[in-house]
């Protein structure tokens, strides 16, 4: 697959803070690339430089081998984290306005069908719910049939059902051949949608690969998860080096049989025991020492 977007040695400073520190990666055409990290890791600054919204202090961004220019703006679809829309105009009017910005556009009725906008197409943009606004913003980002779609935390603040719907819609965009770049702090979202992920912390990329490859490279063990109430913290930490989070003790082990034997021997109740493979959340915690949504 050819490279559609290439980022080299990107640096962005705000006063004494280096928000993005020497970041480099490439995005293959037709793939979905995920930028992961906790709040303040530099994801949004990085994506905004790639969108041409912020100017980097150093480094280079190439779209199809050339600096970001008018061609990029015509071919890119962008959905920001927070966007205010012009007031006193309706959803249809704003779609018409945006469609006039581009030479080649999707049909507004088709987009309205696909993203369920019909119910509020003639409503003032100020009167939309969170989910409706998010669907409209996605439709606006797709109005130019983009070759590359940027989504900055597209599902933050959405209920689980709306989130799943949005994932389905992003999958459809991918199936039509567009490249997708998204930032998220939902691991499940990254795992579901992305072919490749880069994990950022303190403005740097600390890991970068396909999700499964990253997990395979870092882990050959599993997690035995027991409800925190069933295993006293001092026993868990002393005997099993358990990590306590989200009401559970997480015991990492390469030998499940032996761990269960030990737990039985200590009379730990196993009714609420669960065994799971290591996931991106674990990887993130291991790499940064931080919860992803901290």
């Amino acid at each position, binding site marked *: 697959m050819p490279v559609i977007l290439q980022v080299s040695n990107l640096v962005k400073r705000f006063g004494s803070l280096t928000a993005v520190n020497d970041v480099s990666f490439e995005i293959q055409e037709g793939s979905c690339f995920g930028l992961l990290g906790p709040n303040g890791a530099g994801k949004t600054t990085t994506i905004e430089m790639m*969108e*041409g*919204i*912020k100017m980097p202090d150093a480094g280079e961004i190439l779209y199809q081998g050339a600096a970001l220019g*008018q061609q990029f*703006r*015509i071919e*890119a679809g*962008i959905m*920001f984290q*927070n*966007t*205010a*829309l*012009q*007031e*006193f*105009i309706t959803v249809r*009017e*704003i779609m*018409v*306005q*945006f469609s*006039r*910005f*581009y030479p080649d556009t999707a049909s507004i009725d088709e987009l309205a069908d696909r993203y369920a906008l019909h119910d509020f197409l003639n409503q003032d943009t100020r009167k939309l719910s969170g989910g409706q606004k998010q669907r409209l913003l996605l439709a606006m980002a797709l109005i130019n049939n983009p070759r590359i779609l940027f989504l900055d935390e597209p599902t933050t603040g959405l209920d689980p059902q709306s989130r799943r719907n949005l994932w389905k819609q992003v999958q459809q965009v991918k199936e039509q051949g567009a490249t997708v770049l998204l930032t998220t702090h939902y691991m499940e979202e990254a795992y579901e949608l992305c072919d490749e992920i880069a994990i950022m912390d303190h403005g740097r990329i600390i890991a970068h690969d396909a999700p499964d490859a990253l997990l395979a490279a870092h882990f050959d063990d599993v997690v035995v998860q027991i409800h925190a109430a069933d295993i006293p913290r001092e026993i868990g930490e002393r005997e099993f080096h358990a990590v306590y989070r989200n009401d559970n003790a997480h015991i990492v082990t390469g030998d499940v049989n032996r761990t269960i034997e030990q737990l039985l021997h200590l009379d730990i109740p196993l009714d609420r025991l669960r065994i799971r493979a290591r996931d991106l959340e674990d990887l993130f915690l291991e790499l940064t020492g931080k919860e992803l949504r901290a």
Partner: protein
Amino acid sequence: MWNRIYALFVARNLEFVRDQSALAWSVLLPVLIIFVFAYAFTEENPEKFKVGLISGSTAGPAATIFTDTRYIRFIEFDDAARNLPKVERHQIDLLFDPASNRYWINQTSPNGYIVEKLLVAAYADSAETLQKTLVEGDEIRYVDWVIPGVIAMNIMWGALFGIGYVIVRYRKFGVLKRLSATPVTAVEFLCAQILSRLWLLLVVNIVIFIGMDLFVDFRMHGSYFNLLLVFTLGCINLICCGLVVAARISSEEVANGVLNLFSWPMMFLSGVWFSLEGAHPWMQKFALILPLTHVTDAAREVMIDGAGIIQISDHLLVLGISSVILLFIGARIFQWE
């Protein structure tokens, strides 16, 4: 490019027309002001007696008695001929040259009649004789004089705040950021804003002009085309001022402060409400750098004197050149975020 400008132009027009409180305000304010001036002040001229005095000559004793009279405002002029229209239009009650004991008076002016009595009384015991010259001309009511200024002022508020505030609000809430992620360029965006505001301001003020003419029947001696030209150039100039203010600011409070800093001096120092005739010279010089002065003066010259393009060309030139400069600066320093 034109498609993109048109898209932004339409969206901005819809926003303006549907924001009914703002629309109502921009129409109601000048109507209210003109009603107040038409009915509250036309009966009673707010000015004191005003006498023009040709300076640069030594006055005799009788003339000195007259010029020492209290409660008359004496305004010095260099030249009699150039200032005769002021007597004709009742802007001054009498013009007096102490060196030659000559005076000019409009017979239809009630104030002129009283001031003339005082002048004649001052010369009663003197051997010198006064020379009287009558001039003719209609009285310019205060409302005739103030209407061009009120319309110009309405344009100023609409242009400065209509452009400045809207762009700053767009920037603050991220509307500009969203637009910057499209092929729309800064110049296209600014052109659309200028065109939209220009067209809306002209329509609103033409409606006000026609409405006021029906109620007040003010003086309009010049060509409507010239007046439209003056107001159009004035709109563009003040819109460009608004663009420069809004080019980078992202806080509505700061924008409000800066816009007020621009607009209030123009309100009072551009000769909208009272003539700057007789004001301190530095104030008169300062007024010349304010675009509203040129819009008001040019509109007055067209409406009251029936001035043609040539007579108002100095004002048009100042407005035109400074618009180009302001637009250039605004576009150069404009930032989406």
